[in-house]
């Protein structure tokens, strides 16, 4: 039984279809991410979960109750807004107590819960401060305290870290994850930052153009994107245009690359065989591309001869760009030993790391 279920949700603004037929399920205690480029509909989806927008079609259920038309104040979800939306005329205490006042809590209970919420976000003693006296990071914490003070049934985050600087963002990120786990909360987290999503979320839905393209654990998305749009958005993938050859077997497919004319083999689940003689994309992460100066790779499958075009030093790793008879590939290596621009090398693409994408 899922805690939160979205069934075929759609939303149109004017002539723009912001969210198209989105369905997703979130389990109790899960930290769920909605990841996608800006304008992909992830915030609109979150706002529909919060009740701030009403879906045109589809249904939202929480704990087996239909809440599609329930106003936000009756949902009991805590939300952390991108710009924090702290009430500028109220001090920190009153901001955090706002939801408790709306619930007519007694003064003692209110004080106790505000104090414990502020302690959880490590801001005890800040009750009397004006919110505009706080730094960005502190405002952020107050916004989180305000959302958890109501003991929300579900915690919603709309890019809450995007206004913080890099170092603070990473620190807050791990605190946030720890806090949510400690309080046994269920969270839906919207972000466009994949690193952030990978670090925080148990499962992630990647949204592109208003639709969910793929849902899965961070590692699964990273290593085996199912869709060209997902692979493009997650970035730093070598995308190889290729056609499946009829010589393919059911467990091991053979593809001919359109650039370079190489033959590549990869292992496939028997369920998702690619159509014959139609261009598809194969994807492989740069760190999975093996590259050697000598011809020691000879006995590995999918080994191609290539010329080194560029070596970019990047600290711990270096990026090597090669050209294999017209096929451009990128490899991430620890030490570009023995490689020089213009020299001939061997690259191999391990079959188990290559994935064939839907939609060419």
């Amino acid at each position, binding site marked *: 039984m899922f805690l939160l279920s979205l069934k075929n949700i759609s*939303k149109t*603004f004017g002539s723009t279809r912001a969210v198209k037929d989105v369905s997703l399920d979130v389990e109790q205690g899960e930290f769920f991410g909605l990841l996608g480029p800006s304008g992909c509909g992830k915030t609109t989806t979150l*706002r529909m979960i*919060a*009740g*701030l*927008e*009403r879906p045109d079609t589809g249904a939202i259920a*929480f*704990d087996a*109750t239909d*809440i599609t*038309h*329930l*106003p*936000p*104040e*009756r*949902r*009991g*979800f*805590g*939300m952390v*807004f*991108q*710009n924090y*939306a702290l*009430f*500028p*005329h109220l001090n920190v205490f009153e901001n955090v107590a*706002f*939801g408790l*006042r*709306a*619930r007519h809590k007694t003064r003692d209970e209110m004080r106790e819960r505000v104090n414990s919420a502020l302690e959880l976000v490590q801001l005890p003693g800040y009750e009397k401060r004006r919110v505009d006296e706080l730094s960005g990071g502190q405002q952020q914490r107050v916004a989180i305290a*305000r*959302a958890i003070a*109501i*003991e929300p*049934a579900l915690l*919603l985050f709309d890019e809450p870290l995007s206004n913080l600087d890099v170092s603070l963002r990473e620190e807050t990120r791990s605190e946030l994850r720890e806090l949510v786990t400690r309080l046994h909360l269920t969270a839906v987290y919207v972000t466009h930052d994949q690193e952030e999503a990978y670090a925080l979320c148990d499962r992630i839905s990647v949204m592109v153009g208003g639709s969910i393209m793929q849902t899965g654990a961070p590692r699964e998305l990273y290593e085996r994107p199912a869709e060209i749009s997902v692979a493009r958005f997650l970035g730093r993938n070598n995308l190889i245009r290729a056609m499946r050859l009829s010589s393919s077997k059911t467990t091991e497919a053979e593809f001919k690359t359109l650039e370079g004319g190489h033959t590549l083999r990869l292992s496939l689940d028997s369920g998702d065989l690619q159509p014959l003689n139609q261009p598809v994309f194969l994807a492989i992460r740069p760190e999975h591309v093996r590259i050697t100066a000598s011809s020691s790779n000879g006995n590995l499958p999918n080994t191609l001869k290539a010329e080194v075009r560029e070596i970019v030093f990047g600290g711990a790793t270096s990026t090597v760009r090669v050209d294999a008879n017209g096929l451009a590939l990128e490899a991430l290596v620890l030490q570009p030993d023995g490689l020089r621009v213009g020299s001939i090398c061997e690259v191999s693409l391990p079959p188990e790391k290559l994935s064939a994408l839907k939609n060419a």
Partner: protein
Amino acid sequence: MPKPSSQPAASYFSRVSILRLSLLAATVVVLIYGVIYPNLAVLSASLRQDDSWTFVHYTSVLSQRSTIEALINSILLSIGTVVLCAIVGVSLAFLFERYTFPGRRLFSVLAALPLVLPPLVGTIAFIFLLGESGILSRLIQGSFRLQSAPWTLRGWPALLLFHTYTMYPFFYVLTGAGLRRIDASLAEAARSLGAHRLTVLSRVVLPQLTPSLVAAGLLTFMTSMASFSAPLFFGGGVRVLTLEIYGARQRGDAEMAVTETVVLAVISLAALIFFQRYEGTRRFVAAALKGTTRRREIIPKGLARNLATVAAIVFSLMLVSPVLTLILVSFAPEGSWTTQAIPAQYSLSNYVRLFSEPQSGEVFLNSFAMSAIAAVAALAWSFCVVSLVAGESGSGSQHSRAAKYGKRFVSLLVLIPWALPGTVVAVAVAEAYGRRSLLLGSFVLVGTFWILPVVYFLRFMPLVVRAVQASMEQIDPALSEAAGSLGAKVLRRFMRVTLPLIWPGAIAGTLLAFVIGLGEYVASVLVFVPINRPISIAIASEMRDFNLGTAAAYGVVLIGIIAIVMIAAGRLERLRG
């Protein structure tokens, strides 16, 4: 873990609709009674003769030379005023916004003074200072031993001078605000791309200022079209429409008055549409989120700096001298200031008279009560209109096309009394409610105390609506959403989040409407009755009786009250920031 409540949502939404329905009812009733019906009444009166529809009033009115002359004069005067105010206001804005030099702050503090000076009070101050027997003319006449006054404060030059003095702040204030808003990095980018200073001005700065300039042009044009006190006191035979309408009503020529009123209304509305169209095509949205603001350049020591300082002092003196004159004259006992350049004796007698005579106390009480009633009513009503037009946040996308057009229509109707000269509003209310009417039955508003509060309300409610709306628009919609997500219902959201954030702006707007009401003359002179005689009428009648000192004393007290209220409003504005 608490579950979201599972009560049916229907009751919530129906409660919201009851609230919205009552807001809608309040809005619609006021618009029908205050805007639609009176204006239609004027229009229909101008088109009717002996119970049949006819254009005969228009053909007769428009074939009279005097009307055509007034029409052309009104338009020419307004265009001339716009041009002069633009030249003065924009140059001063560039000088005082872009550079810093001694005396700059003095001028910037005083710059907007004419905006809060009631036109009637400004008019009499001008007469005392610049009239043929005014202080300045007599000083010059005396020092150069001239036979007669060096100039007369009459006709076109006098009107244009007075209009420029009172209306240049529209251009000064709006251009200054526009200059401050411009992202300085845009100009810097243009410079780095090789653009010359003048090219930057014409290709980068001016295009971005266009919305401010258009808005200032509109305000100036409309204010000039509605101008009444100056043409009345020193127009010197220059016919303008507001005067013609006043004259026709004084003569009892009702048909002529309503027909000319329609003509004046049509020109004003046409100007509004023209300027708004133009403004709409030239609106710029800042592309960058963060801009750098330009620092004022310091003029280095030398001729330029001295000239700028002298200019600041001269302009500051010009701004305050009418008010200083008024204060001076208010201390001159009646009959003591005859042929001297400046009054020979000073005493408190005028003020003593003002505060001891029950009549004058009554006049102040009337103006206070009527302006306060109008301003408070406008504030209350503004909340209805704005919450209706702004709607509940978050559900913005759910509004149907009909609702969107409805909102636009309501906003337009609210704007109409603002666009119409005071003369038109007064004539319209008088025409609609001066006899048995469809909406009020046998209750006749004209001749009662309530006619002026109603007229003031109609004239100033657009101002209050705009103030409330502007405050509302500054609030991040996420605040109300956050309150909603924390469990606050509509009323709590309004009381705890929206109201605390908008009240400084709303009260400041209300106070502004209140002080403009205190000095209102144009509309009052058309419909006042003995029981609601306001301050402005008292000032005008003292002037007519040559009780110059008493008139000046009235003016000084009025300015004093306005100053106190404006300082309070300014404090509130700062509170809001």
